[in-house]
């Protein structure tokens, strides 16, 4: 029962030479790019001591009464910008996303709509904010405009993709019953994409909130303005206070929108949600068996 001599020993994990060569080339690129960008160890070490000084000046954060008032005012304005921009952005994205869906619209409508989405998507919100600041002056309106454009770029694209992935059966069934275009839309298309759309919308609200704290850097309203001027005045303990408030706000918004998604997509009640995810799976199945019609 000896192994035949011709039997080759099999290597369990065959070396992947193209991949290895790829990694070596990547390593060369990294070295070259670091030289180009002047990223050096000496600068890094220099930075460490500067960073220590910087952190030292940031703590303790400055939460004195007048600063807190500035922060609340700025955050409120940021929230207002995010809310209004999300509402307008979603309102505009629905029709644009629909026009960009290849399975419902003829090509001559789809391509202009897709081009518009591409333009909206390829610029960062801050760049768009600069243009709006020029057009409508400093303040919240410019911020709203910038975030609306950003929302259109994001939601319309995902919405169009979601519509393209729907099952055609229901659309045909509704159409066969003699429904017009809007009938098909309301009864055949929207129910299929609604839950995904809700996900995009709540994600976009989060994202708008993040950006609304930032566009103030170019003068488009919100807390970003105070943040940037605090940086320029080397008022680092105030910077720290603002950053902590922004992080707290964003975490709260994320928790909130996670819960909204759970409420609408999985029919989870608050207590279920607060329990562990495995427990919620169970109640989900229960509600699917009992609650869903």
């Amino acid at each position, binding site marked *: 029962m000896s192994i035949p001599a011709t039997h080759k020993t099999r290597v369990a994990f065959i070396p992947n030479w193209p991949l290895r060569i790829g990694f070596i080339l990547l390593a060369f*690129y*990294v070295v070259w*790019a*670091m030289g*180009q*960008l*002047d*990223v050096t160890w000496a*600068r*890094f070490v*220099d*930075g460490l001591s*500067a*960073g220590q000084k*910087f952190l030292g000046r940031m703590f303790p954060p400055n939460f004195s009464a007048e600063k807190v008032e500035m922060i609340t005012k700025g955050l*409120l*304005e940021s*929230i*207002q*910008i995010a*809310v*209004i921009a999300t509402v307008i952005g979603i309102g505009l994205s629905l029709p644009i996303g629909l026009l960009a869906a290849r399975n419902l619209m003829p090509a001559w409508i789809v391509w202009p709509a897709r081009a518009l989405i*591409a333009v909206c998507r*390829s*610029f*960062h919100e*801050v*760049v768009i904010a*600069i*243009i709006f600041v020029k*057009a*409508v*002056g*400093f*303040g*919240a*309106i410019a911020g*709203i405009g910038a975030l609306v454009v950003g929302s259109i770029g994001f939601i319309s694209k995902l919405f169009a993709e979601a519509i393209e992935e729907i099952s055609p059966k229901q659309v045909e069934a509704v159409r066969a019953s003699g429904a017009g275009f809007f009938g098909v839309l309301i009864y055949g298309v929207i129910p299929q994409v609604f839950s995904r759309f809700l996900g995009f919308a709540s994600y976009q609200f989060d994202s708008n909130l*993040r*950006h609304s*704290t*930032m566009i103030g*850097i170019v003068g488009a*309203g919100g807390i970003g303005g105070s*943040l*940037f001027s605090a*940086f320029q005045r080397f008022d680092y303990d105030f910077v720290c206070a603002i*950053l902590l408030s*922004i*992080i707290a706000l*964003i*975490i709260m918004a994320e928790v909130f929108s996670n819960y909204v998604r759970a*409420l*609408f997509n999985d*029919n989870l*009640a*608050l207590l279920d949600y607060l329990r562990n995810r495995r427990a919620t799976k169970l109640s989900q199945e229960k509600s699917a068996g009992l*609650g*869903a*019609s």
Partner: protein
Amino acid sequence: MSTHAIRRWERFTPEQRFLRFAFYFISVAAIVFSIKNIEVIPEFLYDAPEQLADFFQRMWPMDTAYYQKSVHAALIETLNIATLGTLLSLTMSIPVGIMAARNVVPIKPLNMLAQLILVSSRSVNTLVWALLFIAIFGPGAMAGTMAIAFRSIGFVGKLLGEALEEANRGPIDALTATGAPPTSVFLKGYWPQVMPSFVSIALFRWDINVRESAVLGLVGAGGIGMAMDTAMNLFRWDQVAVVLSTIFVVVIIAEIAVSAIRRRII
């Protein structure tokens, strides 16, 4: 069963209905509150169309010579910042992502620590990271690269952690049963399962980073934003137009490239 009461089917329980109503109510209240309280200066709005027309008029014709003069070098710098930042963030987010995966590292405090790192990385915008790193390393591309890297940790680490948590138990159990040490279990059990999604996460983040690194220059962290900032400060809108169209073209090319690579890999 004649005594059986007629059952009325309802889609939602009263609690669900109440919660949904509460959500709608909060939304409407938030919208009304926002519209009422937002500060608008109407005088600025009246001449917005004129201003916008004037703006586009000044942009045209574009000063195409500006591309060779300063945009090209800045563009290369932007791409380097995005790529190097992404690579740096990958090396940092792999350990954090592993630490966040509850099935790979079944130690609660470590999971929490990883989540904390991920959340703080994601909550601070790239521009703010840039401002922080400018205070540390001074203005320039190094601050931009670090900003891109630190902002991306949260994104890559979160998605990597989720991919790891969804990994199939089978190969892991098989490897553990053979007595493989933890490193081998990870490299031969988990890694092959999450590799495709990791590559696609990395590419997706690179695509985002190309766009983000284009604005870093506005706060002085290097890249094409610097060229734009200079042109704007000089009110050379024809040069700004060159920068904007360059950004547009590069972002579109990056997106097409990323989706082509993803289709080949997955």
